[in-house]
């Protein structure tokens, strides 16, 4: 077997747009090699001399992102992301991957889909929504349920508007934890968006991404709605350092989430400590 190279590939940034005061949305040209990611996979992004970190793909080539491009959302939280978010259109990001498990979508065909995102969780979940919309005829009802701390922190507002405007049984509901005057939408935690949603419990899949507390609340509600444990898909994001099952930073019990995840069904992790 070959040695796995840790050398990244330079990828040109086609567009860099501020999503909020601290989030930048990148449209990036795919590397000059085979690059066929699946929703839930991630890439390692770096700047030589500065550092490297894992980022979820927020849109895949031809599914939300233009053909030949993928998309990222980078939040400015530390030294590396401070410098990464200074890269502008025409600049270069250094990319390894995609890494992570490739989940087969065939079992989801003909089912209802519930997409649940809290806060920054919309970044990875957006790739799932765009995948579902790209293959719209394969699914029945699609619910996109998105929560944020405040209206200002709602990400991808353009996409949320686009999805909301659809009339083909795609339902978008938003909520915020707190809002000032002017917000006419819902106030409450993300899981509260599940109230009143009636679906066929045998034939509905849910995809979740958000902070740990959101998982627990949403799983409780989804299980109470009668959904199967292996129909509940979680993205368990960890701070991967290598992406190839070696560095140990993403270990959950005996499992390396960079390879066996980050996308896992609740049935696969329910017995594991420190999962959600």
């Amino acid at each position: 077997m070959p040695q796995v190279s840790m050398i990244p590939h330079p990828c040109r940034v086609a567009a860099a747009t501020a999503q909020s005061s601290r989030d930048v949305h990148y449209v990036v040209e795919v590397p000059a090699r085979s690059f066929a990611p699946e929703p839930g996979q991630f890439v390692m992004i770096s700047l030589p001399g500065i550092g490297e970190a894992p980022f979820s793909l927020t849109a895949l080539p031809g599914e939300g992102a233009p053909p030949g491009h993928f998309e990222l959302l980078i939040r400015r939280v530390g030294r590396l992301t401070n410098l990464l978010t200074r890269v502008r259109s025409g600049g270069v990001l250094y990319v390894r991957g995609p890494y992570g498990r490739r989940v087969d979508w065939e079992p989801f065909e003909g089912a209802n889909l519930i997409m649940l995102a809290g806060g920054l969780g919309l970044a990875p979940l957006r790739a799932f929504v765009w995948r579902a919309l790209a293959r719209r005829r394969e699914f029945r009802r699609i619910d996109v349920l998105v929560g944020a701390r405040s209206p200002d922190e709602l990400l991808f507002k353009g996409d949320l508007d686009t999805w909301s405007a659809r009339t083909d049984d795609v339902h978008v509901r938003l909520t915020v934890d707190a809002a000032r005057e002017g917000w006419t939408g819902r106030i409450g935690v993300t899981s509260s968006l599940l109230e009143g949603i009636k679906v066929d419990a045998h034939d509905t899949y849910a995809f979740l991404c958000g902070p740990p507390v959101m998982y627990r609340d949403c799983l409780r509600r989804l299980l109470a709605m009668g959904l199967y444990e292996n129909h509940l898909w979680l993205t368990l994001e960890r701070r991967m350092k290598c992406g190839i099952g070696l560095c140990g930073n993403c270990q959950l019990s005996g499992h390396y989430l960079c390879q066996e995840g980050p996308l896992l069904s609740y049935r696969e992790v329910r017995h594991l400590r420190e999962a959600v």
Partner: protein
Amino acid sequence: MDGEIFRLPRERLGALVERLARDYRVLGPVRRGDSVGWVDIRPDTVLALDYRTTMLPPRQFFAPQREVLFRFRRGADGSFGFEEPPSQEPLALLGVHGCDLTGLRVLRSFHESSCRDRVVPNRLDRAFILGLACWTPCLDESFCKDMGSLENESPAALYAWDLGDVLLLKVLTQRGREILEVLAPAAATAEELAQLRRRTRVRHETFPSHLRFAPEKLAAALEAAQDDILWEANAERCLSCGRCNLVCPTCTCFDVCDQATLDGSTGARLRTWTGCQVPGFSKIAGGHDFRPTRTQQLRYRIFRKGKYMPERYGMVGCTGCGRCIHHCPTDISIRDIFRQVGA
């Protein structure tokens, strides 16, 4: 010749080193002050073959504490060029105790089952290991006999018993045979073989037993003790210093970081050792920590060694070397924990 036992007069050790030096970078246990570590040796170097456990295990040579993954250089057009370092020269490691031989086996099983990366297995494949039998326990804290390490000879190419004036050597691999042939050693005498049998028997009695169960039962024992108060009882005095990780022959976790010149034009991406007991190891985006308490972190380390590794890689991740106990500033003992959960 395989399995046969030869005698090498002690003064011929230098000839063995000389032969190895033709093909390998040769490292042996050498005393420096009151400690012993593996260092580059020459034929005339005095080896401390009676050494007690080194502080750092042999994994330091196969998955080094600090290693360049690649170097980068910014070209005239602003784009970066990358270059991987040349592969490491083959290593000969002399005088490796049973616990550390076991550690190298665990290192291999981890790398071969966990990922497609061949860097470390390739280094192990190309290495020449001279195993060395222990006559007395290295540390009060060691429990190598319980963990099946005391008598382990794999992956050594040659295995040695130190009888004082003479070393008895067993050939374990084809490579071991090739190296030894040059020295044209005589077969061990009947008297030496009798002495070896006698000392091996005495050794087995000299090494204490600490656990009252086979290591294969550890996984189930730990599973049953998941919510034990034992974890808190130990974690209360843990300082999160991470020494246990650094001295462990089977820890493999690393961090990745970049180093560059001030103008950022050249530099390297490095991997450096880290561990699950080090603060921040389990921190993730948004400031969340999925294993925030010392109790969780300590339990995780013990579970990884005693449950996750055997379940995943087929080998218990503890060799019984006792380093993590010996070097723990607050005397947290994996041996006691194993003993208590397995009782």
